[in-house]
């Protein structure tokens, strides 16, 4: 087995919430769905209501597509939350608990460590959450096979192929979300190596920069960039045409985000390598 697989396994063991939260939500969701569909008399009394604000409005149609969209959005939001929490915690935890020297004593390069942590956050966590979608979809399909017309009305037409398609769509959508999150992920990895509250610093920092650019320097470009990039993951989760979200943001902002992300990754690698931010070393190679 490749060392990176052992490293991914170690991340799974260390951050148990990544598996436990989706499992808990799956069991809870299945329990609720099970109680609803088994108690078919109450189906006539079910009504779904959604409240939304602001930018979600153009994507309202997605919510009306039924339970599958709700499950997909919920699982996507959980995945996004877990990824961000993981990225903010992983390097900080090693530093705070004192195990950093042990991990550094292993023959693993800093680039490999970063690649594994990014892959864990942006690929493995979405894949784990996709199992939540797959299980729920399979459950609904199974229920549709065995239950009455009322249930079919609620769930709509479904088949095993639909289940697989929905799952693949979710995986594809989450990979796009991961692409959108990648620059922020690099930023969190860098910040978490030197600061104990990286999420707070990143959020407050982003708002401060937005406010400064808008009200002090009267320059809306920075604020628009931050707004566009920070809204991308949720927009992707709720969009019926995820690729259109990339088009809305525009290639310039996306390229800029990736350039900043690359800079953050270089800074993060430098901090990991030198134990401190060494500006000269950053540009020496």
């Amino acid at each position, binding site marked *: *087995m490749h*060392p990176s*697989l*052992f*490293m991914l*396994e*170690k991340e799974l*063991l*260390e951050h148990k919430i990544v598996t436990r939260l989706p499992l808990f939500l799956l069991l809870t969701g299945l329990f609720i769905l099970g109680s609803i569909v088994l108690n078919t008399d109450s189906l006539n009394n079910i009504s779904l209501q959604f409240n939304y604000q602001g930018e979600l409005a153009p994507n309202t149609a997605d919510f009306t597509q039924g339970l599958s969209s709700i499950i997909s959005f919920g699982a996507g939001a959980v995945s996004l939350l877990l990824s961000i929490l993981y990225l903010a915690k992983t390097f900080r935890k090693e530093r705070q*608990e*004192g*195990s*950093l*020297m*042990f*991990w*550094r*004593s*292993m*023959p*693993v*390069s*800093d680039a*490999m460590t970063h690649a594994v942590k990014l892959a864990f956050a942006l690929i493995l966590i979405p894949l784990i959450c996709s199992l939540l979608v797959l299980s729920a979809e399979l459950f609904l399909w199974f229920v549709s096979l065995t239950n009455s017309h009322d249930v079919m009305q609620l769930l709509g037409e479904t088949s095993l192929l639909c289940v697989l398609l929905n799952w693949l769509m979710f995986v594809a959508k989450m990979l796009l979300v991961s692409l959108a999150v990648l620059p922020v992920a690099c930023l969190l990895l860098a910040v978490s190596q030197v600061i104990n509250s990286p999420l707070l610093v990143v959020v407050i920092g982003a708002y401060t920069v937005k406010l400064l650019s808008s009200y002090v320097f009267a320059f809306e470009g920075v604020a628009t960039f931050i707004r566009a990039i920070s809204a991308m993951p949720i927009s992707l989760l709720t969009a019926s045409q995820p690729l259109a979200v990339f088009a809305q943001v525009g290639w310039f902002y996306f390229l800029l985000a990736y350039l900043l992300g690359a800079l953050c990754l270089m800074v993060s690698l430098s901090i990991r*390598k*030198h*134990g*401190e931010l*060494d500006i000269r*070393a950053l540009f020496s190679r």
Partner: protein
Amino acid sequence: MTTLVRAANVSKQYQSEVAVKDISFELQAGQVLGLLGHNGAGKSSLIGALLGSLSYQGEIQVCGLNPVNQRAELMQHLAYISDVNVLPQWMTVAQILRYTSGVHPSFDINKAKQLLSSTQIAQRTKISSLSKGMKVQLHLSIIIATDTKVLILDEPTLGLDLIYRDTFYRHLIEWFHDGERALIIASHEVNEIEHLLTDVLMLKQGETVLQGDMDSIHAQYFIVDAQHQHEAIIQQMSPLASKAGLGSTKWLLESQYRSQAESLGEIINPTLQDIFIAIQKEGA
């Protein structure tokens, strides 16, 4: 003899504070270097530089590799145990062995399990629930099961009881004689490690104050146990330290005065601790 560690003019500065200044040494297979110094003498900074966890000025090569730029490759041959437990507390013993076997190409998991089978450390135990002695034992077992050429120990037995210390040094000596290896030990317990050392590098405020092999260091100093009446004569020999006793005083002197002092009292060979304390107190 293979040179395993080479440090040339190594310095480390934290903003305006100099932690390590212009330190050079070489360590070959079969040598055990005692890195001695007070708290804040620069031992940890030098160790950090050797491990590649701190940037530094100067040149360091361990097993022919640069600790900063070739750390991943170097860590196949270099290991480190410190007084602060660095093992991940949340892992079980079996998990850490599995992880190490996955990422360390020369780690022999069966050897590690065999070493642990002679201890009270169970595979399913969480590291957090092991005693400090057991944690050090586990860490040493992991290192022994790899093809480590250079081992750096930073106060390894601090907080361990006598039984664990004895076991630790026994395993360490077995490991050391099992191949072409070098050892660097940083410790305050000079008496405890003296019998292991072949060489000494003593630091004070970041600078080298004593360096050499044990024989040459012992040859540089002697103690004369002289009656109090000889104090005036001995003071002219610039004694490094003195310890007053009943009727006589023990004076630590440099070897150039040996022939003069022989007539003044009994000549005793100083321990490394005597020399260490004298040098550290000098000018304080």
